[in-house]
């Protein structure tokens, strides 16, 4: 869907001066570029970074004038410090020693800044990922692809922005940035800074920035975000990005670095359980499908940094620190520290370096250091919701604890757990599923133990987790299914559902344990853990359904109250709510009682959900859609497109935005009723069988979900 184009920015008096101002910048930029073209390309030489001095005075007057016309909000460009310039290795070590020799910098500079990578090879990242980013970025910078936005997402400390900055430094020829011309700084990119830190911001701040920046030739880097927790600001942010994607003009590449975070819910109150930008800042909740699925937007996901890659820079830091004499460390000691840092399994380089620095600075202080758990110094690890679901549903088995299996691990048995907790005895079908996994496993411990334990320890909203497991487990099994009636897979599905149901009746902690283990066990078909990486994980619809349920309930109660009805809410909903509109809306009733008006079904109409879809199973499905494998899965699910999403406009006010993003993003194609109409031909209208023999009631057609007049036959097909 195309975004709403912004309402004629040219006629907006507020924006006009900004535009003019930025156009002036452009002129000067352009002239600058021509000059630059004439000069030699000297980016590898640090001395050549500065433009020939004689050219600057020419550019200056233009500049000053343009700056004065630019409103202060418009251009908040930040130039990188000179230390981020591209310098070769010898100079690098020189710089380091230099900064250390000066006592002032030793105090002020943290290791994280001090040892920030200057070269692409120094960035802690997987070489393959590096290659991908480099390729995309090169194409974008050289205008070889039509890609407009490069979106880098990942947890904090996964080298996203460092990599981009280092890459841009090697790719882009520096330019004197105009607004800072007095300092004669050069820059290789334009960076957005949030003015909120300095002054009050306004909603359109980011779009003004983009407006101004679009005429630049330098790539644009967005690392800071405007206040996206304020919904209008977020909407404006997304809108301006959408416009950026849709304009036909030549635009500089835009790199957006997004650190994805998930906040643990503050309480268990239902309102906090929605997947929204408040609880989880991810590309999905921030940008929505409109941007993410756009072909001119590339998203590259960063993972936490792997252990070996993480340790490399740490080793280098220890080496250079000890070489400079700032740190006296034994080899064995250093190895121990590195081993422990690596084992923290965090993959956050920034946090690891800080921990190392803290350790080094307190090394002499034995009293302080002896009791310190190095791992506790690093950022607290916690498992995101979707990560946790994935861990359970995709069936990855974690490694062992190094052969030190406790009794608890060895006695890990789902059957005993559930039988002691619930007193429930398995039936034959469930035992069949359980027995598929022969007790002596390849490893000395149960294959699920660590995966489940990890999720149990690190996940922070168990109820949401279980609901989301319910939402996703069947898709994994259904993918294996080739035709209906595959008894074995159905048994496994029932096994999982059974455990989730049993867990719901238990106390919280045990419940999660039972449910997760049951799910894992149930998804292990023929001793093989099913794995379905292409399946898009979905957030549970539960909270949304509850919200709608409450809305319906409120509506019913209000109706009962205003009309002083003496019926229970359930009767009002299930009987009167349906029949009354049929009666009151009929022509006959209106004629007889001389009344007008239309009454709609209390609580909204039901949406028809087609269960007997003629969708092909398995591979045939994938042939139909050749593009991406996961599209095939999404296709099968589009049938179960959340009917609630588009059911009634009554609920519109209560819809949760972030939630909708997720639903639509995870392959739930919103279908409107028109599409349903196309799919159901008249013959397929579900026939209703009375308990009486059909001969007695010839021509009886199932009539439901109708609130209009049914006297004419043509109305019959109007209710789909």
């Amino acid at each position: 869907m195309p975004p709403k184009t912004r309402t004629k920015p040219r006629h907006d008096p507020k924006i006009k001066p900004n535009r003019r101002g930025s156009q002036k910048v452009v002129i000067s930029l352009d002239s600058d570029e021509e000059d630059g073209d004439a000069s030699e390309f000297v980016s590898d030489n640090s001395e050549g970074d500065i433009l020939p001095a004689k050219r600057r005075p020419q550019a200056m007057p233009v500049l000053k004038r343009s700056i004065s016309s630019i409103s202060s909000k418009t251009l908040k460009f930040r130039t990188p410090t000179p230390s981020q310039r591209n310098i070769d290795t010898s100079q690098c070590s020189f710089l380091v020693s230099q900064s250390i020799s000066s006592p002032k910098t030793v105090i002020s500079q943290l290791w994280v800044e001090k040892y920030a990578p200057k070269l692409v090879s120094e960035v802690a990242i997987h070489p393959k990922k590096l290659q991908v980013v480099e390729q995309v970025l090169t194409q974008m910078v050289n205008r070889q692809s039509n890609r407009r936005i490069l979106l880098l997402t990942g947890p904090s400390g996964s080298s996203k922005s460092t990599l981009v900055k280092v890459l841009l430094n090697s790719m882009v020829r520096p330019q004197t940035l105009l607004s800072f011309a007095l300092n004669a700084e050069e820059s290789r990119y334009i960076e957005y800074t949030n003015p909120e830190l300095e002054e009050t911001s306004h909603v359109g701040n980011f779009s003004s920035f983009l407006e101004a920046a679009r005429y630049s030739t330098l790539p644009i880097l967005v690392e800071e975000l405007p206040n996206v927790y304020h919904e209008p600001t977020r909407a404006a942010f997304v809108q301006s990005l959408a416009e950026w994607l849709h304009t036909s003009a030549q635009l500089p590449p835009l790199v957006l670095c997004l650190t994805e975070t998930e906040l643990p819910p503050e309480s268990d109150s239902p309102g906090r359980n929605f997947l929204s930008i408040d609880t989880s800042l991810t590309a999905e909740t921030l940008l929505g499908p409109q941007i993410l699925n756009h072909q001119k937007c590339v998203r590259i996901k960063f993972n936490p940094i792997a252990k070996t890659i993480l340790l490399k820079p740490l080793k280098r830091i220890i080496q250079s620190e000890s070489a400079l004499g700032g740190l006296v460390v034994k080899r064995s000691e250093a190895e121990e520290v590195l081993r422990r840092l690596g084992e923290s399994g965090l993959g956050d380089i920034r946090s690891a370096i800080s921990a190392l620095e803290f350790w080094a600075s307190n090394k002499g202080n034995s009293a302080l250091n002896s009791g310190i758990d190095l791992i506790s110094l690093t950022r607290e690890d916690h498992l995101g919701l979707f990560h946790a679901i994935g861990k359970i549903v995709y069936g990855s088995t974690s490694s062992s604890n190094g052969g030190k299996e406790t009794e608890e691990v060895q006695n890990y048995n789902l059957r005993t757990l559930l039988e002691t907790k619930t007193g429930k005895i398995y039936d034959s079908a469930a035992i069949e599923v359980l027995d598929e996994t022969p007790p002596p496993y390849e490893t000395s411990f149960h294959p699920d133990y660590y995966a489940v334990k990890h999720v149990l320890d690190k996940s922070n909203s168990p109820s949401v987790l279980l609901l989301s497991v319910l939402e996703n487990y069947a898709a994994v099994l259904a993918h294996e299914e080739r035709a209906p009636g595959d008894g074995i897979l159905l048994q496994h599905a029932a096994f999982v559902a059974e455990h989730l149901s049993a867990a719901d009746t238990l106390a919280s902690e045990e419940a999660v344990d039972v449910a997760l283990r049951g799910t894992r066990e149930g998804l292990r078909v023929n001793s093989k853990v099913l794995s379905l990486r292409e399946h898009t994980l979905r957030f549970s619809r539960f909270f949304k359904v509850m919200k709608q349920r409450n809305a319906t309930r409120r509506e019913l109660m209000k109706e009962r109250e205003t009309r002083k009805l003496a019926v229970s809410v359930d009767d009002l909903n299930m009987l009167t709510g349906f029949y009354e509109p049929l009666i009151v809306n009929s022509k006959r009733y209106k004629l007889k009682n001389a009344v007008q008006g239309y009454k709609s079904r209390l609580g909204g109409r039901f949406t028809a959900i087609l269960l007997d879809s003629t969708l092909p199973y398995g591979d045939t499905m994938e042939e139909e859609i050749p593009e991406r494998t996961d599209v095939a899965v999404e296709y099968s699910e589009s049938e179960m497109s959340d009917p609630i999403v588009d059911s009634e406009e009554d609920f519109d006010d209560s819809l949760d935005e972030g939630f909708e993003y997720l639903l639509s993003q995870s392959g739930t194609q919103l279908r409107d009723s028109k599409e349903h109409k196309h799919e159901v031909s008249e013959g397929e209208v579900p026939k209703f069988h009375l308990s009486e023999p059909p001969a007695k009631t010839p021509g009886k057609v199932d009539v439901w979900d109708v609130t209009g007049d049914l006297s004419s036959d043509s109305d019959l097909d109007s209710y789909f």
Partner: protein
Amino acid sequence: MSLWVDKYRPKSLEATDYHPEIADRLKALASSSDFPHLLVYGPPGAGKKTRILATLQQLYGPAVEKMKIDVRQFQTASNRKLEFNVVSSSYHLEITPSDMGNNDRVVIQDLLKEVAQTEQVDFSGKHRFKVVIINEADSLTRDAQAALRRTMEKYSGNIRLVLLSNTTSNIIPPIKSRCLLVRVAAPSEAEVATILDKVCKKESVSVVETERSQVLQLMAAHSGRNLRKALLLLEAMVMQNDHLSLKTPVIQLDWEGVIRDLTASVLKERSVAKLQLARTVFYELLSHCIPAKVILKTVCWELLRGVQRDSLKVEIIELASVFDERLSLGQKAIFHLEGFLAKVMVAMEQ
């Protein structure tokens, strides 16, 4: 202009069409000087409320029909203000605990205390007590029921309680033992048909004369012996059609239609993919406030209708009872509905 279901609601005990023995008993109770606490139970649409309102009429005369709605304020333990509507006349008041959610204990205690402490001002009245009708008493929490039990004893001089419920199984024994239990059974199909016939005549509905009894029988059967449903169905069908005949389509309830589609599909074939789709159906029903237990029950009956094998029928009933219990024990209905359907699918495959 009211619906037929309200228009033809009998106002007095003499006018009730069936269960004459209940009418006689209630009449005897009302005319005696004392009146016990009552626990009236029976399936929905059987006429519990009708009989109780008629009894009140018998007790106090036509003045009970002058009803008003008050908004009362209550304060919960956590100092939250609650607003709650109470339907009352000068002789009785009526509350529905499901309106107050988890705070029903507070509301019941406060309200009953307040009513009980004010004596009847009108001394000309026949009775010195007020009647408190509690609708849907089976949805009272245990907490509230325990509170009720004490209140019943303490203030029995000034108030009489009438509890209305669909089943006695959710009501704690101490309350049961303090009440006179009155069971109002659902009318038989023949009785429903008779009432429909009566209404048809009064409204001069045109029914094809040769098929008259059959049509009314059919509607009565379709209503599941729920008189409210039968009357609504009749009016809806009359309003939609010029003449009623056997050819007239019987209007099916929308949510029942949704469940029927589901079960028909499950009876045809079963797969994990279908289980997944069924979850959407369950969510849709739940979002429309259809109680989970009703969904489970309807699914169960519809499945039984389509299943031939007796052993399988037994198995389905057994599973339904297991998951019905879990619905009571658990928090989130969707787990149990899915669990039930999954287990049934497995049972059907075997």
